[in-house]
């Protein structure tokens, strides 16, 4: 009623009102300009909170209670040593560490502390290793450790049972081997520690909203000896990092595009090109330390015949796979990735020449094994039975899922009919462990060949179908030995040649993993082999990440125009005013 009266009031506008309107509009404009100047074009203004979107929530935040690590563990914990971009081992928490083949000596600086304030000492390292041995699924990592000696308060000597590079390469420079505050863990209990663990990383856990996000806050006690970061202390430019779990690709992508998320992991294959063209986004790229491959069951005919397995290797056109996957992979013919230790490019070159794509060679090898196409249907047969194989393909590994039909058509060109069954990756892994498969698309990701290949290809350590005593001998030599890096390159070159002949796998490609980062994030370092994010020098520029509009004053002005401007322009109408 009141409003209506105002609109239809007899007097259009008084002089006083006019002056008030002008004054308020003017104030609004000035305030708007001021607001715009201070917020949208700051001289030095940083956003204090950084938001990272990752696809999957970890099982636990305690690195000793997980079967896979992620960005959270890298931020909350601190590796004793670390890798630089040439895969050299460099100091991180420790100021130095020496490895002589049978023992590892770790030197901690005198004044390092956990985020809880408890001191990090040689004793703390021993306790953490003991807890890992008991609690972690990878506890057997320390099987080669005889004992941990306390040399002095800040120096520990890890004595090995026999010469071995295992702990030095697979635990000391990796987050799984990071030191945790066992004292705090014992006080809290393992379940509670899994929610709010204490480490010595750049950030510490503030809150975990199950299923949604983890909020990290700066660890002001942080100290590092990393040579490739400038800031060796806490990053005072950032107060909090929020790690959000967004399983859906489109959602994660939208959040990045909207600028509500600064860093995105798990970039979907079909979004790579689009994001590379986005001027607000920088793409960091790194090669996974491992390969995606097809595992072959050697216990079932006709796959027990090496010629058939070799034929499958000839049948795959890896360049076409790369094309289909829009360049997000690197074709791979050997058994190792360039991001792995002891990798040799000449071994890879040899593998490439050994299995250069040739459906004809595949067919002739199959013919040697007795499989020929007698009924001219394109599929080779033997005793009237066509060669039909079943491939287990994981639906939760986007690249493998996508190339399923392509693999099928490539095998068909070589005369092999392949039927695809899609399952959860973990289910497929379990099936292969029980030899309940013919072909299975799989992958691995680990930087040290001694820490992964024996678990896949050693006849006793692994539970798979491949077995070659010669290979076992060579794997043992590295697994329980302390070879020099050059000797290891030679050893794995030799091993790869043997595998190429035995053909237990069909290697397909190495993943290029992408990290999409908004331009507003500066100083980020992404390091191999696991594309670890180092936030030590990161600053987030405010204003560029999100569009800050002078919307408040603008709204004020529009509101004023509506309330005061309209009656002023309205003509006096006695008919309306009467009703």
């Amino acid at each position, binding site marked *: 009623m009141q409003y209506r009266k105002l609109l239809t009031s007899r007097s259009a506008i008084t002089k006083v009102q006019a002056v008030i309107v002008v004054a308020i509009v003017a104030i609004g404009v000035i305030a708007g300009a001021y607001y715009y100047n201070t917020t949208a074009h700051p001289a030095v203004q940083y956003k204090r909170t950084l938001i990272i979107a990752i696809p999957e929530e970890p099982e636990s935040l305690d690195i000793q209670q997980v079967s896979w690590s992620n960005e959270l563990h890298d931020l909350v914990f601190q590796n004793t040593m670390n890798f630089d971009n040439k895969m050299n081992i460099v100091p991180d928490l420790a100021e130095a560490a020496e490895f002589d083949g049978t023992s590892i000596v770790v030197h901690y600086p005198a004044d390092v502390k956990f985020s809880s304030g408890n001191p990090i000492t040689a004793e703390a390292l021993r306790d953490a290793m003991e807890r890992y041995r008991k609690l972690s699924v990878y506890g057997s990592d320390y099987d080669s450790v005889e004992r941990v000696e306390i040399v002095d308060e800040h120096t520990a000597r890890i004595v090995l049972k026999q010469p071995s590079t295992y702990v030095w390469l697979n635990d000391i420079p990796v987050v799984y081997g990071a030191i945790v505050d066992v004292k705090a863990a014992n006080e809290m209990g393992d379940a509670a520690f899994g929610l709010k663990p204490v480490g010595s990383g750049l950030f510490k856990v503030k809150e975990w*909203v199950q299923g949604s996000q983890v909020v990290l806050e700066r660890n002001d006690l942080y100290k590092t000896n990393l040579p490739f970061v400038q800031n060796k202390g806490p990053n005072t430019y950032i107060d909090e990092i929020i790690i959000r779990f967004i399983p859906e690709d489109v959602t994660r992508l939208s959040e990045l595009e909207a600028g509500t998320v600064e860093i995105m992991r798990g970039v979907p294959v079909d979004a790579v090109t689009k994001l590379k063209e986005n001027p607000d986004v920088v793409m960091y790229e790194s090669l996974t330390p491992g390969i995606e491959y097809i595992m072959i069951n050697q216990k079932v005919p006709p796959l027990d015949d090496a010629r058939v397995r070799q034929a499958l290797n000839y049948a795959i056109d890896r360049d076409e796979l790369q094309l289909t996957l829009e360049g997000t992979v690197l074709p791979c013919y050997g058994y190792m990735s360039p991001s792995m230790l002891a990798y040799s490019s000449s071994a890879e070159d040899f593998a490439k020449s050994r299995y250069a794509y040739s459906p004809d060679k595949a067919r002739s090898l199959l013919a040697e094994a007795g499989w020929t196409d007698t009924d001219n249907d394109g599929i080779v047969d033997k005793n009237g039975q066509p060669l039909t194989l079943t491939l287990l393909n994981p639906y939760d590994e986007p690249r493998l899922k996508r190339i399923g039909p392509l693999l099928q058509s490539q095998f068909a060109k070589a005369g092999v009919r392949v039927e695809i069954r899609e399952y959860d990756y973990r289910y497929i892994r379990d099936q292969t462990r029980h030899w309940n498969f013919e072909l299975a698309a799989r992958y691995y990701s680990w930087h040290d060949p001694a820490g992964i290949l024996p*678990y896949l290809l050693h006849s006793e350590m692994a539970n798979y179908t491949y077995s070659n005593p010669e290979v076992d001998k060579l794997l043992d030599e590295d697994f329980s030995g302390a070879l020099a890096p050059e000797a290891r390159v030679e050893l794995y070159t030799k091993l790869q040649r043997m595998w190429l002949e035995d053909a237990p796998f069909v290697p397909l490609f190495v993943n290029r993993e992408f990290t999409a980062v908004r331009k507003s994030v500066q100083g980020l370092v992404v390091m191999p082999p696991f594309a670890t994010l180092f936030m030590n020098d990161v600053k987030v520029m405010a204003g560029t990440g999100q569009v800050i509009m002078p919307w408040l004053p603008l709204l004020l002005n529009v509101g004023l125009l509506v309330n005061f401007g309209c009656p002023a322009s309205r003509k006096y109408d006695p008919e309306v005013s009467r009703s």
Partner: protein
Amino acid sequence: MSALARYAFKKALIGIPVVVLVSLLLFLIMQNVPGDPIRMIAGERVTKERIEELRRSWGLDQPVYIQFFYWFSKVMSGDFGYSYITRQPVSYLIWSRLPYTLELTLPSLVLSYLLGVPLGVIAALGRGKSRDYVTMGISNFFYSMPTYWLGLMLMLVFGLYLRWFPISGVTSGFDSLVLPTLTYTLPFVAFSARIARTEMLEVLGEDYIRTAWAKGLPSSRVILRHALRNALIPVTVMFFLDLPWIIGGAVIVETVFSWPGMGNLLYKSILRLDYPVIQAIVLIIAILIVICNIVGDIVSATLDPRIRVEPEKM
């Protein structure tokens, strides 16, 4: 009323073996799924010996019936045990998700009936006319749209392009609720509208409605008092049958909007064969179904005197 109480008590007694049977069945089914949680999570670098060690420590090497009795006796004392995967107490995992789930599903359920029933009634009253076609057409559209697509469209339009609401997550309070609730509600509105329409049409064809019209009663009285009241009885029962499921959450809506609900927890637990979590959630749903069935019966008996007589004869 005492007859009703006796009836409810009897129903509850029958409910107990149902719940026990459901959990036992589920336990047996889970045991027959290939693999077990430890083997499933154990990555490549885990040795065979370590896997066996961990299975022993979780009691997974025990015979199924021992595992079941151990689990059931603990549940009886209110302890759901620990998740194999996250190593957190199951009760903690459920309690941390429950508020978010209810925040999403309860308003959705209520809203879908509040919107759907009037729509269905409007459609029924205008049967064969344009408003029937329009309301039912729209209902059919939302009912047949895949939730996944609907969610993504709402997200892209109102979240990414218009920026009216947050794209995903739960951190913006009421604002973050709008899009997921809408996605979850719209198909249900369609569903309840269709039920309401069918029931209403059936009642409108009854003799007593013709009598009511013939008596010359005003149409509002005929529709609201005579027709709607009777048509609402099956709708009310439907509501109570839907009620237990709200606790199960909505996997697709939760995934699209990264909503930390029970649906996601259940889905992930099934994928990872996390028995204790699956068992607990299914048990809770089973108990709720029994309770809601009883409540639904009582409510419909209160609404409809014809039903009220029957339990006494049982």
